[in-house]
């Protein structure tokens, strides 16, 4: 699925995914592996809750003082000889990149994995200029060959199994390659080696930017980002404006949180901190280095009490791996660059077009697994509700739902009305209820009853039963023991003095 996100609804897209057995198996297999890896790695590391809280505080502090740290970063990066640019939106970021590419008479760009570059659709722009753009992360390379977009923040080709991948790579190789991961990886390695040597420009993303030194940091497992950032003569780094951490000491916390949350690794195979272009004494590295700091909707979250914490995200993908909805529908069903719970909130927030994107916020049961998995404790389950609320407040609610909710309020604002509605249900259901169950698939029951039976209402609701129940219980009630009384009084006293801790 390319950029046709407005063309269909999340319902239609998830319908396609739910009927794709390959996709569902592949996504389940890998997300299970990743989340089990995370569980193991975080347990082994110990004190995980404290680490999460520390990570959250660093991110909260940085974002609250983002202007200060961005300035510091830019000053230091420039002092290191880096050309720093600012792009207010995707269009500007693309134009800046194209200008640099044109000035170098570029024919080929090698890229390491970058979600920001996906957000900007930079490959399409490069190709339009007749420049070859080659993804060098294995997963990104695969989906580039397939003409698709990533369906996971860190595992772009998570929706494909190795047989599908072998087929794609065989086409590229011009011969049939066996579905053996080491043979397939070997083919890609040979192929990409030539591309690294040919390219005039290496383009990277940025996991973190260190304000105190002006360095940019990359986490990766394949060594391709190191090739991209050392072989070509020019490096362009695309960086979301919120990627900053103040110091290397803060990076240590992020380096503890990110790989463990993403894949269950203690550390990624490579972690590179790059503080500028090649110096005289360096054996390798780019002669020229550019960092493009991209806003593209991020600053809209600043000062918004409900969504500012979105900028704390470190793009580990743990919320995707934990999400029971993602597990079944994969990433493309979300329809945007970012998928899963973070994508369901981030996409509408960055684009600030609540009306058009209203439906992805609905693709969540609000179970909170995303929040529990998040290494910096972003309350995504709350944000999903806030998003739905904004849609309604701005008048984009669906008419049928609006009427339904008015009805809900009318019934639930008055217990007598609620009681009579239950009574009507008890009588009305006689047409459709059999043996304590309702199986009809008409009207609003269609979706529910296509895989379930609905229990019918018992003859007496609790409130109808109450008076007799109360009498029966009173008749056999023992007196409260002193111990129970004391414990209850203690709880009351404690509440009065300290309040209660709410989860």
């Amino acid at each position: 699925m390319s950029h046709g996100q407005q063309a269909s609804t999340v319902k239609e897209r998830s319908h396609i995914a739910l009927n794709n057995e390959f996709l569902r198996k592949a996504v389940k297999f890998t997300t299970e592996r990743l989340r089990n890896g995370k569980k193991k790695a975080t347990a082994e590391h110990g004190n995980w809750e404290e680490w999460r809280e520390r990570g959250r505080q660093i991110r909260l502090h940085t974002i609250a003082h983002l202007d200060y740290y961005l300035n510091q970063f830019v000053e230091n990066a420039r002092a290191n000889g880096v050309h720093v640019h600012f792009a207010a939106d995707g269009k500007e970021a693309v134009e800046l990149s194209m200008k640099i590419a044109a000035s170098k008479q570029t024919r080929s760009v090698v890229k390491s994995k970058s979600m920001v570059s996906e957000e900007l659709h930079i490959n399409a722009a490069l190709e339009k200029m007749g420049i070859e753009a080659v993804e060098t992360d294995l997963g990104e390379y695969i989906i580039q060959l397939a003409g698709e977009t990533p369906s996971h923040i860190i595992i772009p080709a998570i929706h494909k199994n190795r047989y599908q991948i072998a087929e794609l790579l065989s086409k590229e190789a011009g011969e049939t390659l066996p579905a053996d991961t080491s043979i397939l990886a070997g083919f890609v390695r040979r192929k990409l080696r030539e591309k690294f040597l040919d390219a005039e420009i290496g383009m990277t993303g940025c996991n973190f930017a260190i304000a105190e030194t002006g360095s940019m940091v990359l986490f990766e497992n394949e060594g391709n980002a190191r090739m991209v950032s050392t072989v070509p003569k020019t490096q362009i780094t695309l960086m979301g404006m919120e990627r900053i951490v103040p110091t290397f000491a803060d990076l240590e916390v992020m380096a503890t949180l990110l790989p463990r949350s993403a894949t269950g690794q203690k550390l990624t195979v490579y972690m590179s901190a790059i503080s500028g272009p090649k110096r005289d004494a360096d054996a390798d590295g780019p002669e020229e280095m550019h960092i493009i700091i991209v806003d593209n909707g991020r600053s809209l979250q600043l000062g918004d009490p409900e969504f500012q914490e979105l900028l704390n995200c470190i793009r580990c993908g743990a919320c995707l791996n934990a999400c029971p909805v993602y597990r079944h529908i994969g990433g493309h069903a979300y329809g945007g660059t970012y998928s899963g719970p973070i994508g369901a909130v981030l996409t509408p927030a960055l684009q600030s077009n609540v009306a058009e994107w209203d439906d992805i916020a609905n693709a969540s049961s609000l179970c909170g697994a995303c929040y529990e998995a998040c290494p910096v404790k972003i309350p995504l389950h709350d944000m999903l509700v806030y998003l739905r609320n904004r849609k309604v407040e701005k008048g984009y609610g669906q008419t049928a739902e609006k009427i339904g909710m008015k009805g809900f309020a009318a019934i639930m604002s008055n217990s007598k009305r609620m009681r009579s509605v239950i009574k009507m249900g008890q009588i009305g259901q006689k047409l459709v209820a059999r043996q304590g169950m309702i199986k009809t698939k008409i009207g609003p029951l269609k979706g529910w009853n296509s895989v379930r039976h609905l229990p019918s209402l018992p003859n007496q609701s609790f409130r109808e039963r109450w008076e007799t129940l109360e009498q029966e219980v009173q008749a056999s009630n023992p007196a409260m023991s002193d111990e129970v009384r004391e414990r209850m009084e203690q709880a009351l006293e404690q509440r009065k003095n300290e309040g209660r801790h709410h989860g």
Partner: protein
Amino acid sequence: MKVSLFITCLSDAIYPRVGEAMVRLLARYGVQVEFPKAQTCCGQPAFNSGYWDEARESARTLLAAFEDSDFVISPSGSCTGMIQHYYPKLFEKDPIMLKKAKQLQDKTYEFTQFLVQVLGVKDVGAVFPHKVTYHPSCHGSRLLGIKEEPLALMENVKGMELIPLPFAEDCCGFGGTFAVKMSEISAAMVSEKAQHVLETEAEVLVGLDMGCMMNISGNLMYQGKPIRVMHLAELLYEGVKQA
């Protein structure tokens, strides 16, 4: 001390036996529960859909009904979570109602929280000679942090074999209006959950939220699988009667 039952609309209309089990179980400790009839629903269906004005209308009935209660006890982690986690947000712009919301937040307990944390009861003296598996509902376990309490209560039930549910922490796909709005995704989720329940070969599925239980049992009934689905309060009360 006034102890009130917040029955929740689902238990009121569909599962009154859950409320009855709670009332009878607490009565054994001399806790006389009362039932303020002005209560309706916590407002969650409207709140989660983004209709906060409508949610407030419903929430006001609870604030009024429980105004002079000392303890409010509910058989649902989800509805308790709505009060504890979202009522202050819902009334953040109304200082008078916000104060009432915070008072209700302080005195509301999910059933196992009250039993274990307040009364200090971990063994109700129940006997239940069956194979049981437990689905920890998302809102109870994640929003309220109720993890130890139900396990402590279940471990002390004599004769009961508790079989771990695979992928227990995964949502069953209920999610209130989610099950209707995104019925196809919800169907995939509940079908997988039911499959995991069947894999345990348990006779009974127990939980703390009747929304989730209605969802999973609905699918099990649809598949024609005779697994009994119960709220933990029901299981404990039945076990006490058998003891």
